[in-house]
């Protein structure tokens, strides 16, 4: 083996070892390109997804912004209407303010007049108070007089009560007397007249009313019972016939007899015959007064 070959073998070995060391070092320290590529791909996909989401968000934000812009425009239009209304109200309020100011001025004048009127009213009130004081004194005096009058009135009312009691007793006695008088006069064809007060209101002297008055009842004889001395007349209690009344029976201006009523019906009455001059017949006239 020649020397050159040996030298080449040694050099080849050295350079081989050196080159292998460089290659191993490089390969050991080299970056994993696949992993890097995968990572970049994932990052790219994530970035694309984020971009799409951002675009969607942007579109949504644009829509929302448009919606808000439309809302704001609607609100602005509404606010413009409100502003116009408020301006109209402001104008009306200003007019009212002017009117109210005018009213205030008028009211000031009225208040001044009222103050003047109040002063005059105060004067009148003072005068009225003086009059009230005078009237109060009069009222006190009249109250005393009224108390005295009440006392006298109570005494008079006691007297009036006594007089009414006496009057009631007299009326009862008068009614009893009238009843007795009527019973007495009835058999003579008369009734007690209504008593008139002796003292008239006019104060003029009046003659006293007659005590008795005529009854003036006229009837016909409708039935005769000579055997029992009874006769029936054509009127009864409806015409005013009462028991014990006496009817005079006549025939052609001739006295026939008397009939004293015993029983009275509504439209007929029956009586006993008295002082018979001639026998009575049906159709004879009968009257309480001749």
């Amino acid at each position, binding site marked *: *083996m020649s020397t050159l*070959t*040996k030298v080449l*073998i*040694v050099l*080849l*070995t050295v350079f*081989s*070892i050196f*080159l*292998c060391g460089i*290659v*191993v070092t490089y*390969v*050991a320290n*080299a970056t*994993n*390109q*696949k*992993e890097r590529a995968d990572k970049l791909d994932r990052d790219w996909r994530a970035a694309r997804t984020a971009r799409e989401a951002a675009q969607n968000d942007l579109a949504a934000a644009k829509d929302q912004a448009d919606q808000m812009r439309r809302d704001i425009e609607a609100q602005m239009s509404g606010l413009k209407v409100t502003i116009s209304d408020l301006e109209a109200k402001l104008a009306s309020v200003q007019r009212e303010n002017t009117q109210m100011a005018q009213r205030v001025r008028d009211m000031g004048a009225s208040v001044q007049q009222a103050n003047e009127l109040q002063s005059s009213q105060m004067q009148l009130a003072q005068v009225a108070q003086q009059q009230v004081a005078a009237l109060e004194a009069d009222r006190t005096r009249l109250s005393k007089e009224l108390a005295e009058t009440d006392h006298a009135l109570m005494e008079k009312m006691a007297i009036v009560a006594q007089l009414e009691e006496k009057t009631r007793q007299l009326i009862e006695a008068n009614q009893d007397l009238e009843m007795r008088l009527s019973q007495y006069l009835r058999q003579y064809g008369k009734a007690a007249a209504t008593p008139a007060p002796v003292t008239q209101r006019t104060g003029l002297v009046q003659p006293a009313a007659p005590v008795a008055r005529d009854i003036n009842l006229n009837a016909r004889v409708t039935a005769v019972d000579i055997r029992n001395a009874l006769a029936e007349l054509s009127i009864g209690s409806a015409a005013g016939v009462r028991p014990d009344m006496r009817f005079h029976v006549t025939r052609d201006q001739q006295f026939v007899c008397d009939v004293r009523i015993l029983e009275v019906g509504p439209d007929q009455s029956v009586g006993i015959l008295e002082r018979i001059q001639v026998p009575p017949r049906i159709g004879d006239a009968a009257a309480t007064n001749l």
Partner: protein
Amino acid sequence: MSPMPQRSAKIAVPSNLYTAILAVAFGAVLATAAFVAIQCYSQYGTIFGMP
């Protein structure tokens, strides 16, 4: 008395030494190639093709 060997003869390196050196070099290259192949297969899933 035994005679001394002659030192005048030139020392000769056996040729097996260079064979060993070549074997070392070959082993280094082979190990490097295996390491590179393992790295490629572990990282890219293939040795020669594109992933």
